[in-house]
């Protein structure tokens, strides 16, 4: 509980954490020792607003429902202050009283549950290994099956199905063969003497072809049929003839291996 010192001569306000505006109202009614059936709206409304201001000063997260209740109380206050022209049989406070009574019942039951919980949370039950080790399917009581459990079970089953039935992998026939690219590059290097690899790759629009060309180039470099040179990082890579003559059989053979 926090005590807020007011600057003026208004008595300090005690702040407990209220679980809602009805909770705060009940607290004020009890503190003022007034009857729930005959709430002095003007005084209670003022005290409610004092509380609300204190909560805001303390930067407590004042939920919207507290503000809604504040406006309702102001509305009731204005109705009570205005002299009623027609003697109406209905008291404007009726709805509020009804809701307070319903809420007070809930609070009574909640308090009973609280006391029961305090004692019963201290109970321990035997944790038997048979419960967790049992290979048998866990049996569920009909009582325990609700929509949420059903939905969760459905998702589990679908998840298991999808895990055991992964989508098929479609293997498309290779459109580019490493052996062909090897032969192409080897021929171009042999004919032209110097081939700019990056420029060649950049002119290809198909990623699959680019990959095939790179693999073919690496294969040629490994076989020493072609040398690759680069002056500095990211510069053009030039291919020039290597120190070995590659036979067409050698090209075909390695192409098959990596293809």
């Amino acid at each position, binding site marked *: 509980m926090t005590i807020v010192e007011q600057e003026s001569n208004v008595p300090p306000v005690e702040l407990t954490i209220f679980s*809602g*505006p009805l909770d705060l109202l009940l607290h004020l009614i009890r503190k003022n020792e007034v009857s729930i059936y005959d709430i002095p709206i003007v005084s209670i409304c003022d005290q409610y607003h004092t509380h609300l201001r204190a909560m805001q000063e303390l930067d407590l997260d004042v939920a919207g429902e507290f503000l809604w209740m504040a406006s309702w109380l102001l509305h009731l206050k204005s109705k009570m202050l205005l002299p009623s022209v027609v003697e109406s049989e209905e008291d404007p406070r009726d709805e509020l009283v009804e809701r307070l009574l319903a*809420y*007070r019942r809930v*609070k009574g*039951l909640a308090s009973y549950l609280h006391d029961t*919980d305090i004692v019963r*949370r201290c109970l*321990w039950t035997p944790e038997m290994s048979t419960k967790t080790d049992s290979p048998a399917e866990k049996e569920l009581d009909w009582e325990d099956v609700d*929509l949420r459990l059903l939905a969760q079970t459905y998702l589990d089953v679908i998840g298991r199905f999808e895990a055991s039935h992964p989508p098929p992998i479609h293997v498309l026939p290779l459109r580019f063969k490493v052996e062909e690219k090897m032969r192409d590059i080897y021929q171009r290097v042999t004919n032209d003497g110097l081939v700019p690899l990056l420029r060649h790759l950049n002119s290809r629009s198909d990623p699959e072809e680019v990959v095939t060309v790179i693999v073919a180039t690496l294969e040629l470099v490994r076989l020493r049929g072609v040398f690759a040179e680069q002056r500095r990082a990211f510069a053009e890579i030039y291919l020039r003839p290597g120190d070995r003559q590659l036979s067409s059989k050698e090209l075909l053979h390695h192409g098959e291996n990596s293809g």
Partner: protein
Amino acid sequence: MDRETLTASIEAILLTAGGSVSVAALVEAVDENEFDAEEIEKVLDSIAGTWDRPDSGIRLERVADGWRCVTPAPLDSYLRSYHGIAARQRLSQAALEVLAIVAHRQPVTLPEINFIRGANSSSVVRTLMERKLLRMAGRKKVVGKPFLYRTSKEFLVHFGLERAEDLPDPEELVRDETLPAE
């Protein structure tokens, strides 16, 4: 099977069941032809009486749709010390209010809970669902088809009730304008 063996086997079943045991399950486990539910109930009552002594660390209690072994509450601190467990998490005031509303008015929707509490309760309801104290029980046939909530079997077991109707009448609890101190 003689009476002594019957008592002993019921004790053994209760001890190893790891949860509550229904009388029907006990009748099935022992010889059905020899003992009926009424006799088993009698044995259960006598076991409960035998265990209910200051120098016994086990109690037998009737919960939800069965019987189960528990330890007496005052031994909690020693058990926590042995198992190295800090105090268990308490239920918040908001959670207790939601439980009270659902227990008293079930089945009930979230908007109805919000109205009675005068405060938004959606996160509280979600937490209580996760703690398995509430369960969903269909949808209400009104605009928006909101979910209906009921208390679960765990709720009954935790609060030591056989049925939700065993909860005290809220009117009785708040009679004479006296509310328990906060």
